[in-house]
């Protein structure tokens, strides 16, 4: 049996839940109320784009890219890397994703047809990432100060990005998928190893995205 096969998820966890969620709390306090501003900006662009205001569709990839850059720089690189030596690699992946969003996003092709599964799935995941995700901390019994919001924290940013990817066209979608899919798995398994019910957030979002992508192809 390979040496790696003997490791459990708990063996790979480098920090305690208390340390991780205090990190998020202190991060949120440093930036408050930027969280609200980022959500408002994303809503102002995504909602009209979802109801087919074509000119605004071009603004979605840069807004998402900005959110990925902010998460990579301020959270992964400046803070999370202090307790997790893998995070500089994750930050690099997030910067690559931001570049891909800017380069590939505008070439996504026609948006999902109104009333299609992809259209509703995209709206659902985007709104979940922007409006519902911050309440997961509270639902999981944690301090609301540790709420995860779009543009500040990776998981709601990934959820919103998945939603936008479904809404805004499918051409070259495969280029935009690997990094958010990999992050969702990593984040979900990390929370799972911490025995945190919030693990259902990233894993559930990933499952919903994949179901809509696969079902939407039929």
């Amino acid at each position, binding site marked *: 049996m390979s*040496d790696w096969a003997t490791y459990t998820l708990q063996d790979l*966890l480098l920090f305690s839940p208390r*340390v991780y969620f205090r990190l998020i709390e202190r991060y949120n306090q440093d930036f408050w109320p930027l969280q609200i501003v980022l959500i408002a900006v994303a809503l102002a662009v995504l909602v009209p784009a979802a109801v087919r205001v074509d000119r605004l569709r071009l603004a979605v990839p840069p807004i998402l890219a900005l959110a990925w850059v902010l998460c990579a720089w301020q959270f992964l690189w400046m*803070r999370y890397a202090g307790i997790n030596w893998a995070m500089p690699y994750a930050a690099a992946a997030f910067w690559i994703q931001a570049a891909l969003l800017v380069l590939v996003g505008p070439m996504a092709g026609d948006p999902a047809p109104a009333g299609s599964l992809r259209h509703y799935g995209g709206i659902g995941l985007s709104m979940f990432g922007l409006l519902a995700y911050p309440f997961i901390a509270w639902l999981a019994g944690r301090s609301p100060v540790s709420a995860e919001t779009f543009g500040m924290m990776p998981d709601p940013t990934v959820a919103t990005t998945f939603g936008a990817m479904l809404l805004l066209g499918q051409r070259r979608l495969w280029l935009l998928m690997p990094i958010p899919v990999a992050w969702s798995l990593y984040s979900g398994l990390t929370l799972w190893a911490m025995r945190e019910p919030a693990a259902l957030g990233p894993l559930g979002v990933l499952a919903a995205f994949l179901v809509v992508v696969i079902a939407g192809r039929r």
Partner: protein
Amino acid sequence: MTITRRTVVQTLGLGLSLPLMLRPAAGQAGDMITKTIPKTGEPLPAIGLGTWITFNVGDDPLLKDECAAVIATFFEGGGRMIDSSPMYGSSQPTIGYGLRKLGYPERLFSAEKVWISDPASGAAQIKASRDHWGVGKFDLMQVHNLVSWEEHLPALLDMKAAGQLRYVGITTSEGRRHREIERVMAEQPIDFVQLTYNILDREAEDRILPLAREKGIAVIANRPFRQGDLIRQFEDAPLPDWLAETGASNWAQFLLKFIISHPEVTCAIPATTRVEHVRENLGAARGVMPDESTRRRMVDYVEAL
């Protein structure tokens, strides 16, 4: 505050042990059971301090101060060995923070690891570790999880010969690569081996601990509580009515006394973030130690739970 069985036991114990607490700190440190490092005869308290997960607190001022209090309590209680690794996130700077606050106690026995696959980067990593701790040299440097040990070990032995280290060792955990560990122990002039040994993980008893005795190698037992799982598993179970024979007064001490009462185990390194747990853990190295028949009874009791 969450009231647990542990808290209740500690609170009751506090009242009973008040006369003892009034004794001078030096007296508390002095009565600790020590083991001998076979290669030099140097005595070492049988309970050390691990830092895996518990000291990886980043730059959080509150949590860093909690860890510093753990270190202070550890030294006040007679502890010496602190063990860490570059793999443990911010644990090394946290140790340095705690040691600076204490003014670097002379009792410190610093145990570190080299953990890098590129052998050429080993020296730089060790220097970075020294800078994090704020020490001029480490007492013990171990090859972490046997990573590139064929290349690192000669370099560490050279450092030892040059007086830049006092001891050299290797580590593994959770029973991994024991055959390779045996080979290193048999063929290399190492001073320490670190591996997982606790009341449920006793594979080391078959070959590695006898080999340590034969080769004169000190043994550090990691994961004494299986990362807290053993405490969580047993804390609601009754302690045996023959507990006095073990010398323990709670589950943590029961589990630790089993480990350090093995003749070949030099030191166990439980990790914690709480000062009351440090005191509890250090208490395992005081008083009566279980003999061989009591140790067998301890295993039977725990396995029947």
